[in-house]
């Protein structure tokens, strides 16, 4: 005697991206903390020292935040005009920042007043940075010059005027104290050597350069500008390695994660994209405003993003500890002892074994189907939770009822409330290629059954109106797709005149499948 076979729910594989380790890694961040600054956040820089505080340059202030605090630990407010490019020295004790008026200020991290002021630039200084020896500061300015300053004496060591437009990007080398890279709005990226006092390498980015970034090995250079992100191989004399075009607005900032050196780019299109080592996008953060600056803390603990509307959004990494605290709050289940109770009993040789029949556990709708309560089974399958989160279960029950030939009975005799439920479900899923076939039959039967009484309920009538619209739109779409398919057919046919069979291999399967349901849908629309 066979037991009751439960309804088979078909799970169709979802199309789209696969879940990889990278996506899991980058998904593992908490929801962002929003901190309001006074103006657009133009620069974020993490201190290389242990607490990893970070300096946020926005408007006329530079705030230094702790890794987990939402209030600034320290703030530098002695700017008369907008401050730019606040960045730490390699030991995290000094901070340098440029400003709109052309002054460069050097701060002690504990002090409030500027230790040094470098004067010389005639226009706004947007980027400043320490060279890796820590005794010199390099700055790039809108007056087309790039200057190197001596920290102890506060004098200008050299001034290079090679760019022909504003300098808006700067990256010092960490390995060689005499090397730094600048990017400018004249579409070029230049590598300067202080020993020669001039550029040693020039690369054409093709768009105004917004940001340059050196890989830790300093063999690769990243430049962003326009919608492009370009990777250059410095060891090959500045050859372009890859050009990425994943954003649809200007890419304003780029940084590297410290685990695995993954590249992150932020853009005015409000997205942060994470690339893997072969430069495929593996993850995407969405923000609410255009992104101007971005930084990642060591060990990827924090991703801080600054935006044009003055909001600093900080994402912290989730840790297992946090999870544990969450779960510990929950009620503990029964102990292991309870589970194994009586199950580890070993029978002796002369014991009689009385086997207990294994009970078959059935879902509620299966139980109702087993006792032929078809209307109730359909009601169960149309319950709120099932129909919203598991529509395939609802559809499976509908298919099973149809197979038994009792779908009409199950749909008959319903009141307005339950009929709206069914119609809502139809509206939501009827154009889903997985479900359209059984749901169209449901639609047919509903119309057949309730044709006489439809006009009595305005709610149901409105829903039917909407259903008609949805189906009409779908039919139009399918027609267009068929037209495209026809065009493709002729194209392929003209491409391969000899071998009349080969083209079908290239023909995308999805299109083929799509056009299958066209005829049925359109036929149904006509009927309705």
């Amino acid at each position, binding site marked *: 005697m066979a037991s009751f076979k439960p309804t088979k729910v078909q799970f169709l594989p979802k199309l789209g991206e696969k879940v990889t380790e990278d996506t899991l890694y980058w998904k593992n961040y908490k929801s962002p903390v929003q901190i309001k600054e006074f103006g657009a956040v133009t620069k974020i820089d993490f201190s290389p020292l242990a607490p990893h505080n970070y300096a946020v340059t926005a408007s006329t202030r530079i705030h230094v935040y702790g890794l987990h605090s939402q209030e600034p630990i320290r703030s530098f407010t002695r700017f008369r005009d907008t401050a730019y490019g606040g960045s730490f020295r390699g030991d995290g004790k000094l901070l340098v920042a440029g400003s709109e008026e052309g002054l460069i200020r050097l701060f002690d991290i504990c002090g409030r007043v500027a230790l040094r002021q470098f004067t010389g630039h005639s226009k706004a200084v947007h980027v400043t940075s320490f060279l890796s020896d820590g005794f010199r500061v390099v700055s790039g300015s809108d007056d087309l010059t790039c200057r190197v300053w001596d920290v102890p004496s506060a004098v200008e060591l050299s001034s290079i005027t090679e760019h022909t437009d504003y300098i808006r990007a700067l990256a010092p080398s960490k390995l060689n104290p005499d090397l730094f890279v600048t990017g400018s709005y004249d579409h070029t990226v230049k590598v300067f050597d202080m020993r020669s006092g001039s550029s040693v390498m020039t690369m054409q980015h093709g768009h105004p350069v917004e940001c340059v970034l050196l890989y830790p090995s300093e063999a690769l250079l990243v430049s962003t500008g326009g919608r492009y992100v370009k990777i250059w191989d410095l060891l090959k004399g500045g050859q372009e390695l890859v050009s990425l075009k994943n954003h649809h607005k200007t890419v304003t900032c780029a940084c590297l994660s410290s685990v695995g050196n993954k590249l992150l780019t932020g853009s005015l299109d409000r997205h942060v994209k994470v690339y893997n080592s072969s430069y495929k996008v593996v993850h995407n953060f969405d923000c609410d405003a255009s992104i101007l600056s971005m930084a990642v803390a060591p060990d990827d603990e924090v991703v801080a993003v600054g935006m044009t509307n003055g909001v600093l959004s900080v994402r912290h990494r989730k840790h297992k500890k946090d999870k544990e605290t969450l779960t510990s709050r929950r009620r503990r289940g029964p102990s292991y002892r309870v589970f194994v109770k009586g199950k580890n009993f070993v029978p002796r040789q002369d014991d009689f074994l009385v086997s207990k029949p294994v009970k078959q556990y059935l879902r509620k709708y299966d139980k109702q189907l087993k006792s032929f309560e078809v209307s109730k089974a359909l009601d169960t399958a149309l319950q709120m939770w099932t129909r919203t989160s598991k529509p395939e279960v609802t559809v499976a029950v509908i298919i099973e009822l149809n197979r038994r030939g009792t779908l009409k009975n199950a749909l008959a005799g319903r009141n307005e409330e339950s009929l709206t439920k069914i119609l809502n479900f139809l509206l939501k899923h009827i154009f889903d290629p997985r479900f359209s076939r059984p749901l169209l039959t449901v639609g047919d039967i509903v119309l057949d059954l309730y044709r006489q009484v439809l006009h009595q309920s305005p709610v149901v009538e409105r829903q039917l109106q909407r259903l008609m619209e949805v189906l009409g739109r779908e039919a139009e779409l399918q027609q267009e797709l068929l037209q495209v398919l026809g065009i493709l057919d002729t194209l392929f046919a003209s491409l391969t005149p000899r071998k009349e069979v080969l083209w079908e*291999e290239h023909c995308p399967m999805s299109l083929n499948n799509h056009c299958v349901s066209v005829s049925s849908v359109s036929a149904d629309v006509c009927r309705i």
Partner: protein
Amino acid sequence: MVEESDVRVVRFGGSKINLRPPIISTDSRFVLCTSGDSVKVYSTRTEEWLHSLQGHTNQVTGIALNPANHLQVYSCSADGTVKLWDFIDGILIKTFIIGYPLFAIYVSEKHEGIVFLHIAMDTDSKKEGFQLVAVHLPKSAEQEVEAKELSAVSSHISPNPSCTAFGREGQYIAFARNLQLNVYFFRKQKTYSFSLKATDKKGAKNAFTCIACHPTDDCIATGHEDGKIRLWRNFIHKKEYTYSTQHWHHNAVNTLCFTPEGTNLLSGGIESVLVQWQYGTGNRKEFLPRLGGSILHVSASSDGQLFCTSHSDNKITVIESSFKVCGVIQGLVKGDAVLTDLMIDPRSKALVLNGKPGHLQFYSLLRDKHLYNLDIVQQEYIYEAGLDQFEVVKAAFDIKGYWLATVEERGQKSADLEFFLKLWSYDERTQSFVLNTTITAAHTDRIISMCFSSSEETTMLVTIAEDGQFKAWCQGVDDQNFWSCDFVGSYHNLKPTNCSFSADSSLLAVSFQEVITIWSPDTWELLTTLCQPPGVIRDLCFGRLSCSKYLISTTTRNLLCCWNLLTCAFLMDSFSGLYTVFVFKPNEPRPLFTHKNVCSEKIHRAVFVPREEPLNNCDESSQWLNRSQLYFLTQNMDLLTFSTATEEDRMLSSSTRLVIDDSVAVTPFYLLLGKHRQQQQKLNTPSHQAADRPQQPQGSVTITELLHTPAHVLPPASVLCSMFVSSLLISNTGEEDSEGEMEACDSQQELRVQGSVDEVTPKLSKAQERELKRVRKTDFSWMAGLIASKP
């Protein structure tokens, strides 16, 4: 051409066991049922087939226990005889010749020496007129007796044998026909009849379908077409009869049966639910659902401990009185139709075909036993008339038996066709097939045919469908475990008709109406097209082994066409004939073998099954049967096969030896020696059956002596040991001997290696044949001398 006496058609098995109600023996140890022209005896405990009572020459139509002797059973057959058997030993005791085709048999304790039989009113049984006759069986010592004392009890009775039943202690007999219930009282010699209206106000159908009488009470239970059960009482008075109605079945009641004490009434119908009604308490009932096919018969053992139901899917279920299924005896399942072809599972060599609805059945041909059902559809089966069910319509195995592809279909009649393509992989651990991939919309229209590639490394499935396309499916394209589409092809939008892979899988042939296209599966290039003479191609097949260059096709115009693919040359032959089997060699236009009128019934399918061991038959006419056997399936689900004389001889000899082996008591020595002997036999069987004959007496004398002596009188083990060793030594030389013979046989087999089904067999000239026979008969005993002389 060949004379037909050499190769003849034999019934192989797989016949219906559900034609008539099964009988449980009085001690509840055996179940007897009719099966084709024999009666089969099964054990109720182990469900094993013990033996069959063979002797009738036509369909056995009824069995009944002899009321005088509970170890004997009467059987009646359409050949006009009633036979009395001892069913435990399987011995025929007596044959009574009646002379008319018989259709059912009834016996009663009160009427000793009399059997009641259904015979046709007229001599041609096609007319629906049957009569019930009482036959007095003469007492005589002879084996064959002619019984001539026939007396008609009633004429115009229902052809359905379950519409007749004996009443309390055989006082009356009740039989129903259409809307009339008749009760014949033996004492009064009168018939009372009670009739119902054809339909009542509610439109119920009142026709009688079955009848049962209470064993101790004057009560008759009748089943009706609308599912009602009526209990008739007080029918001794013609006018004052009463009946009560009970209704549970939603369709016709097929069978009714009272338990021997009369406390319960069992009923069954198409719903496949056994219902037990408590007698006298109104509506209290118990159910046993999902037993299998619809219930045709129910019978109870005389002690009331066991019930037996027989089902439409050729199954007998043994049920305990506590309503628990304790055994299932399954014959070859008769599905609604054999939609899949007959196939052979390459792994178990079992015959595979449609079984229960939505299942594939695996049937062992060697043991004539149903192995298991594989659930393909995996859905609850609803027993309802007119419901469109999923059916397995296509199935295919790959060459190693690791993959199984099935197509199930629903909605053949209506417009919206649903079908699934499923791929199953063999699981070593569970020893059955496990679902791997379900493809919901493999094609846009019905799949016509499919085949696996036959290469060892990569498995590929090709399906062709009515949408004009053929698709190739592969497993593990992106390191995935499941199957996906690899290629879609078509040819001028023609509808494909069949497909086939060549033996080495280097070519794929797909036929499109009248055109055969040859493709290379590696590059999916269209290599060539072969255009056929008029007629749509139905089947395609590549040759094997030495004939792999041939492509054979059949067309709708009774043509068999053969292409030589190396030269693209064309050979053709046309033939026709009803119920005729032709066997061809691919390179010869004349048939090798012809057999007309294979059997009286319509043949549905046929399949070649490779033999376990090839036959040594050099006869030219039956050489094609050496390496495989041809099986047919008839409409009644009987399996037929061709058999040759040598094969029958061998079967006979093997069966007699088996009996000897059984008589040896199972002692530790026997087990020890049995193992040894089996090994020996294994070594010997490939060479020749006769080879181990001479050594048998030598070994078996000591062995039987050993085995039959009780342990306490046996000599000490040290003495025995030497005896053992010596016996082993002798058998070793015997083996040596047989090896010599094997060489001789090997040369024969080498010649025969190519002698497969569809391939060229080098013809042996008469002289060569004689030479070979001579070699086989040569005595190799001088070899033993040689070996013995070796230091």
